[in-house]
């Protein structure tokens, strides 16, 4: 079947056995670096010495094959701070391990993992910003989400929300002033601010760009213009109902249900809830609708970026999004912020009359191939487009892995990684569909992957509709029996991810025995993907950088959270 992935080549790595990971072997591998063990629901955690983090990560990467640093979570306990490095394998993401790094409460500092995984750079900066842990040997430890002049670290328990803050407005450098940043003080360069208010940044992103003539000498994404304290909001909410509305607002390009699923999956694992099969199918169907809507917008705005074309392609894609949004509205009652999933199922059944709804969905699916053909004519088959996009913004697979990219960005670099298949959840394993990869590694491949994924999503929806249509009426169970208040056991920790529209959307939750999470950390795919932008753009023409940015398809609500 198409879901069979090529035989993963992990068997010569330390700890890999027939029956899953052998954590004792990994323990031996880490040897004296380990000072303790922890058990998380998703993986074993090894507590390592704070001054030898890089070494531990390096051993795990080189010898045990953990080549994907998915996320770095920082958190505070009463007596200590802790950073958790969630490691996985691109070849098989069900093989996971957590590296737990404790540090003292008075002077929290530990070694940086940046030397081993480039993605640690930004994740650690975020941890420093919000939690105030310092990372030794970090190349550039500055605040990343909050303004530089911010006082205090807001995710700490003793942070005073009422204290006044002063925020500077400095970014109005004169582009014509003398500037010699590139090439060691020689040569003329020019500093340009792109954003935070700029049509090509897809929101409020600020790119500090140094140009050498028309080529990009250096680009630094400056984020945090939409840091809405999502983690804090989730930590204030109760598991059962108060958290679910927020995921809709992370990746707000109509990808709501995909995000909700990330929370649902994590919390369901945490509280040990089984979801009825019928609900799983509805989830799968609606999630794929969201993916189509999201990819449509990505394609539309990408065409907007490279053609500067506010007419045909953008309008076509909005037209098709309207159809999907109508379908989702019929199902959920909202056009954008669905709030449709519930722990243990979905909020309500399909709209009555069901036949009419199925027909609408079918109509949409029937029209889709012709429409996609049209898109291909306008976009991927267009010579000008190809000239702009083939071989620009190249991100080779090694770099892509080191930056922790996922989703269409990784798949456009030939990395065969899709959590729907590799870490199965929902109803995906029962359905017949393919994971799309392209190995061009350029802007063109990334767009192509998205367009082809729309077809795959359509396949999935079609199969779901078939199943739902024949589902016997008395077995339509939309929600499992879930207690009114959920209080997962004290000190249970779990990190779970789903394949969002932009890639691996993960959530880490630590429960403390109350009905609210003690720590709620979001792993946003866009955050990691955006970090790779300089890698793709340095040395290229500035219009190609805009194209690369468009092909990353970031959404700032998710980058900044």
């Amino acid at each position: 079947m198409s879901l069979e992935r090529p035989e993963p080549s992990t068997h010569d790595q330390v700890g890999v056995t027939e029956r899953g990971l052998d954590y004792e072997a990994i323990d031996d591998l880490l040897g004296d670096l380990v000072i303790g063990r922890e058990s998380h629901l998703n993986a074993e955690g090894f507590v390592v010495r704070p001054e030898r983090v890089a070494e531990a990560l390096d051993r795990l990467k080189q010898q045990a094959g953990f080549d994907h640093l998915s996320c770095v979570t920082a958190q505070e306990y009463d007596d200590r701070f802790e950073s958790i490095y969630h490691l996985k394998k691109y070849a098989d993401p069900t093989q996971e391990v957590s590296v737990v790094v404790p540090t003292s409460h008075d002077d929290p500092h530990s070694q940086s993992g940046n030397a081993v995984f480039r993605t640690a750079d930004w994740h650690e900066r975020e941890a420093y910003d919000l939690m105030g842990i310092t990372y030794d040997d970090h190349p550039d430890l500055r605040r990343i989400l909050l303004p530089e002049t911010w006082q205090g670290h807001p995710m700490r328990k003793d942070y005073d929300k009422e204290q006044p803050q002063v925020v500077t407005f400095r970014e109005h450098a004169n582009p014509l002033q003398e500037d010699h940043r590139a090439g060691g003080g020689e040569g003329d360069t020019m500093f340009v601010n792109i954003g935070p208010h700029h049509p090509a940044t897809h929101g409020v992103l600020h790119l500090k760009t140094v140009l050498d003539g028309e080529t990009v000498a250096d680009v630094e994404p400056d984020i945090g213009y939409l840091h809405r304290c999502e983690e804090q909001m989730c930590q204030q909410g109760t598991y059962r109902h108060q958290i679910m509305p927020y995921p809709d607002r992370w990746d707000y390009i109509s990808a709501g249900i995909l995000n909700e699923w990330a929370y649902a999956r994590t919390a369901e694992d945490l509280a040990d809830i089984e979801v009825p099969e019928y609900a799983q199918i509805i989830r799968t169907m609606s999630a794929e609708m969201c993916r189509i809507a999201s990819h449509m917008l990505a394609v539309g705005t990408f065409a907007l970026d490279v053609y500067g074309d506010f007419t045909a392609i953008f309008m076509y894609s909005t037209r098709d999004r309207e159809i999907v949004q109508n379908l989702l509205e019929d199902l959920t009652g909202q056009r954008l912020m669905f709030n449709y999933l519930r722990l243990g199922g979905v909020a309500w059944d399909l709209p009555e009359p069901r036949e009419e709804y199925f027909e609408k969905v079918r109509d949409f699916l029937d029209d889709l191939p012709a429409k996609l053909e049209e898109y291909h004519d306008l976009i991927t088959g267009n010579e000008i487009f190809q000239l702009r996009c083939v071989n620009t913004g190249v991100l080779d697979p090694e770099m892509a892995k080191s930056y922790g990219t996922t989703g269409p960005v990784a798949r456009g670099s030939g990395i065969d990684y899709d959590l729907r298949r590799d870490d199965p959840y929902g109803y995906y394993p029962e359905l017949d569909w393919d994971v799309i990869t392209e190995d061009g590694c350029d802007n063109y491949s990334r767009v192509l992957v998205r367009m082809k994924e729309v077809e795959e999503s359509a396949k999935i929806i079609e199969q779901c509709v078939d199943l739902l249509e024949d589902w016997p009426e008395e077995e339509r169970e939309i929600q499992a029996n879930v207690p009114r208040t959920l209080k997962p056991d004290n000190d249970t920790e779990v990190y779970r991810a789903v394949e969002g529209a932009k890639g691996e959307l993960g959530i880490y939750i630590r429960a403390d025995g109350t009905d609210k999470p003690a720590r709620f950390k979001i792993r946003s795919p866009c955050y990691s993907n955006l970090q790779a932008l300089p890698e793709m753009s340095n040395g290229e023409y500035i219009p190609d950088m805009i194209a690369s940015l468009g092909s990353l398809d970031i959404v700032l609500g998710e980058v900044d959270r």
Partner: protein
Amino acid sequence: MSSDKQIQSTQEARMGEGVDSRFNSKLREAFGSSPFILTKFDKFMNWVRGSSMFMLQFGIACCSIEMMHTYAVKHDLDRFGAGVPRASPRQADVIIVPGTIVSKFAPRMKRVYDQMPEPKFVVGMGSCTISGGPFHEGYNVIKGAEEVIPVDIHVPGCPPRPEALVYGVAKLQERIANGESSPVTVKPYELEQFGDLEGDELVRHLADQIDEEDLVMRYNWAESP
């Protein structure tokens, strides 16, 4: 052809015997014999302003997705003479603020607003621009756009449907045509020079990081609503 002689220029046709009936309208009839309107220049200008508004292409958060849909096919804000998004604030009359404003963004938004030529109007879209919306309690979130810039029309919703935004814009046009706009007052959060801030503990602490002339915005969270 034989009817050649009868063809006259349009002008002739009109000038000949009274006004061409095609040019008649209810309005024209109401004017009676004199084809002139007497109005105040201001009133005329306001009518023009309201009927042709240039919007600023300004996306912040989730609401901007619905804003895009309002501009695009199906809802097509252009039908109401308000659908030309301009990328530069210097060409825009109306700014729709579509999303959550956080501490880092407020100074930039103020600057963009300042760059728009007078007269300018603001539509606040979504609960976030009213009070911070779902993120009201966030440590970093400005409790509504009105803390920073004056807002003419609030469109509630999270996000408001495109129809609601269209309605909001139509209401704004009505107000403009009537010559109303929200008064520009001093807002709690203003861009000021760092040197002008009161020298309290925080300012003294930051003195070596910020130049006297740097523009800053000072947030007093304890006093915000």
